[in-house]
């Protein structure tokens, strides 16, 4: 059924750290490798070594330059140091966000596209898919790609065939992209549970959802680049609030020294 399941407490998803992502594409390659042989594979490439290779990838890594115009001093010359702060390079992995209320599920005419009630993973039943591609049109995030070779749509499965796979070591029951990331910029967990590690990370780093104005309520979160030492982009990223107000003067001398040392 392409009707959405009732909201479930469990919302499995990814948290992607744009501060530490170095744009190495290891996540994209590991994803491709796992899903080529996994339950939802193969992910065939056409003309792979030819002139116009094309094929389905569940994960695509974009790169952007952020020109920090907001920090420019009015009247400063173009060559001054403050003005010439280098553009911020941001690598941006883009994959399915496993939205809570996605149109890619409800527009599907066959029931091939569905959202799991138990953990919120959005999947395609390739045996039912007719390849009308309407789900791809309905997704602003480009999460769905049409396989010319298979004639059906394919998309990120959140490695559903890994994360519940009891043949794997428990530590390996994570999406392939998360396992592969050399800078630990990708985190997997239950974003419906406020006490989970990923939820805490999102709360601490002001993680945000992409294009919330579409109303699809993405589950995945992106962590913004941290403020630089020179203070740039500090304005855009709110500094995390301390959990409890700490009055320095009211502390006993030893703790006051510790506070000073740790605040350095």
């Amino acid at each position, binding site marked *: 059924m392409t009707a959405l399941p009732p909201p479930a407490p469990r919302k499995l998803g990814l948290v992607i750290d744009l501060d530490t992502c170095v744009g190495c594409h290891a996540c994209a390659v590991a994803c491709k490798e796992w899903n080529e042989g996994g339950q939802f594979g193969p992910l065939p490439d056409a003309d792979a070594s030819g002139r116009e290779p094309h094929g389905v990838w569940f994960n*695509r890594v974009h790169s952007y330059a*952020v020109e*920090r115009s907001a920090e420019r001093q009015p009247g400063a010359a173009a060559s001054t140091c403050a003005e010439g702060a280098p553009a911020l390079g941001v690598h941006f992995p883009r994959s399915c966000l496993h939205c809570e209320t996605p149109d890619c599920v409800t*527009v599907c005419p066959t029931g091939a596209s569905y959202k799991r009630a138990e953990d919120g993973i959005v999947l395609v039943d390739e045996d039912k898919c*007719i390849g*009308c*591609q*309407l789900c791809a049109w309905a997704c602003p995030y480009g999460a769905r790609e049409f396989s010319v070779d298979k004639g059906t749509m394919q998309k990120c499965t959140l490695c559903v065939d890994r994360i519940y796979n009891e043949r794997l070591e428990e530590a390996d029951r994570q999406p392939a992209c998360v396992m592969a990331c050399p800078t630990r910029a990708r985190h997997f967990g239950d974003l419906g549970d406020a006490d989970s590690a990923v939820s805490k990370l999102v709360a601490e780093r002001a993680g945000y959802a992409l294009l919330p104005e579409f109303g699809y309520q993405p589950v995945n979160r992106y962590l913004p680049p941290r403020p630089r030492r020179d203070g740039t982009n500090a304005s855009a990223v709110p500094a995390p609030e301390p959990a409890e107000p700490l009055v320095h003067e009211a502390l006993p001398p030893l703790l006051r020294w510790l506070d000073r040392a740790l605040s350095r």
Partner: protein
Amino acid sequence: MRPTFSIIVFTVLSGTGYGAWFLLGLGSAVGPLCARPGTLDGISLQLCAEPFGSTLGLLAGCVLVAGGLLASLGHLGKPARAWRALSQWRTSWLSREGVAALLTFIPALLLLVPALALEFTLLGTSADPVAPRWWMAPFWPQPLRSSIGLALAAGALATLWSTAHIYASLKPVRAWRDRQVVPGFLLLGLYGGALLLLAMDALDGMLIERDRTALLLGVVALAGLGAWLKWRYWQAIDTLPALGAGRATGLEALGRVAATEAPHSEENYLTHEMGFVLARKHAARLRRITLMAGFAMPALLAAAALAWPALRPSLVWTALLLATIGLLVERWLFFAQARHAVMAYYGR
């Protein structure tokens, strides 16, 4: 969005077919209207006919609808599984369209098959041409025929409505969220349908025999309305602000975001399907072609047909052909000029 040939042909042909079916269904629902009694060779007689009524029109509608639906299968990756698309009518406009499209064939065939059978009987037998047979449609009792006509009109309208909503419901394609889209699909379907009926009337001589003033005036009015709607739509989509990479990535608060490197060196499905870039220098010209061939000239030809009844057959056929070309160009633009939100990630 990439203008796919199969979808353009489907929406234009089926739209015209369903428009014709809608008018014919309305005609059957209203029932025969009688002209003032006259005399022919000294015998007093009164001509009665359904408004728009024409067996050829029903048949042509059937051919266009079926042809369009078959063409739409060409867009599917797995056409053999198309039957599955009838299952999710609770949520999916595409599924609703499929269900409505097929259900509408029932009243259409209930009217068409007996009408055709009657025509063939009249052609084939000279001895006893009107021996009543169970399948002889025109002899459906009037209340039943009215209900069938009403079902045909409702089904055709529901199909056009669903087709329009397939596009109008796609949030990432902001041009299609425009208010003009749904009325546009209905209106252009009706417009094509009216022209189709006139052209079919020309084939069996009814265009001269019967009074088609209302239909010709309707074509002129629909052409004017259609051109106005399309003009408004183009004005609206031309002023849509771009989404931009900053908004798409959520990094806009940090500064101006520019895509420096794409995730892939070659085209992929997304850039191929959603990143279709129309050569802009042709857009204005194609819009002018739509307005001229699609609306202005057919309206002039229909007005000329009002003035010179003897020339009607050639005038309405020219109008139908020009309007079809215009509508095909219009539909091509509808896709080619609609931008998909995902391209913001690519900085396009």
